[in-house]
């Protein structure tokens, strides 16, 4: 297991932009279709997100990451085409199955909305180190303790994942089967998870002590090792994103 997250190291204008502005952008642009409720508006923001992935030089990674959901989107068209409550106009007949125009249109709408949500998030996720995002959120007002919890998740997971393979090897050398029928694989789950969780929880106690010794629970304001991330386009980007969301709402009301 690699470090948690989708971040790809690159040099691009998007990588240089501060994480909080990208988060504001991603949130607003992901929500535009939900607020506007219109396929054409969705198509436009979808194109904006695609061009931004090009700008961030991560389009290929983004599209590859989407490949996994292709199958589900296929079943969405199939099932909604058959069973959508508003179905009236048959389009395709395959044996006993009939696909209707209304259901397919509905599936297209759900797909477009989902793709836009994912790609908007990708603009943030592929160009931002998760640790940078959390640190900037703490600068922006997130309680430091919450920030600590989020950051330590990012640190614990890779170390736990590294321990999994050690435990798996140890159990295999003692004769545990990890291949075979569903039941065999299911039974292999606990001997791996058990030692891992228990050793992690014991390590947790030491971490709590180490933190308290360093004044983790102490009252008063916190200082930061790093300066807040400044970018001259930070506020224009945030303003633009919020304007787009309000524009989508206005579109919904005026129409």
């Amino acid at each position: 297991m690699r470090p948690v997250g989708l971040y790809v190291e690159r040099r691009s204008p998007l990588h240089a932009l501060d994480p909080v502005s990208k988060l504001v952008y991603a949130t607003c642009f992901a929500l535009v279709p939900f607020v506007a409720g219109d396929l054409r508006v969705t198509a436009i923001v979808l194109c904006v997100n695609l061009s931004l992935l090009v700008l961030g030089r991560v389009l290929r990674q983004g599209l590859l990451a989407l490949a996994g959901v292709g199958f589900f989107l296929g079943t969405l068209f199939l099932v909604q085409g058959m069973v959508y409550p508003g179905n009236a106009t048959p389009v395709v007949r395959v044996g006993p199955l009939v696909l209707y125009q209304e259901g397919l249109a509905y599936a297209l709408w759900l797909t477009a909305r989902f793709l836009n949500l994912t790609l908007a998030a990708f603009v943030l996720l592929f160009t931002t180190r998760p640790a940078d995002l959390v640190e900037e959120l703490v600068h922006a007002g997130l309680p430091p303790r919450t920030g600590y919890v989020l950051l330590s998740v990012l640190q614990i997971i890779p170390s736990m994942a590294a321990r999994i393979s050690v435990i798996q090897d140890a159990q295999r050398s003692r004769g545990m089967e990890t291949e075979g029928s569903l039941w065999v694989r299911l039974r292999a789950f606990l001997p791996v998870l058990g030692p891992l969780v228990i050793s992690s929880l014991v390590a947790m106690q030491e971490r709590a002590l180490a933190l308290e010794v360093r004044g983790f629970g102490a009252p008063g304001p916190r200082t930061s090792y790093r300066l807040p991330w400044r970018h001259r386009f930070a506020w224009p980007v945030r303003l633009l994103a919020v304007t787009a969301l309000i524009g989508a709402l206005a579109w919904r009301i005026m129409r």
Partner: protein
Amino acid sequence: MATGTHSQVSIWATRWTTLTLVLIPVGIAVNFVGKYVAQALRLPLWLDSIGTVLTAFIAGPWVGALTGALNNIIYGLTVDPVSFWYFITSVGIGLVAGVMARLGFIRSTARAVVAGLVVALVATVVSFPINIYLWGGQTGNVWGDALFAALTLRGVPLWLASFLDELVVDLPDKVLTVLLAFGLFRALPRRLLSQFQLGEGDAQPTA
């Protein structure tokens, strides 16, 4: 174990210490690892809330709920933005698992199965409206969606078909999740659990 012998008030009571705060990331990591191992062993289940249930067992419903919430936030911010929508489901799982534990449902395996059924039911009730809004009622699980299509074609109302679609996946998944968390919980050292215990009146077995 003295779990579940508390008065009505202490079902929701929580000890917020540094240890509690450090427990949460471990719980979230266990969620990730459960999901990862389930995928590695090619199991047809998610098993991605073992840590949420375990922290709820150890430290009560609020800590379970917070673990669930932060789990979906961190997952949404790093890997899969759709998990934000299922934020409430994770909070529900943590709350219910914690309440069931405090009510004494983790004193035996048979009771833990009942707790698992309740957690599955709550997860389903919270998730299926989100499924209807986002996916027209589907879950993305092949068996569940096949059932959904078959039921809807036979005239079963959409909400009911969607509910059952989610339930057939959640029932085995959450019962197994709760049983795994129960097994892990029982294996934990008493010394560790006692630091999360509430009140002084609890009869602690002397180690």
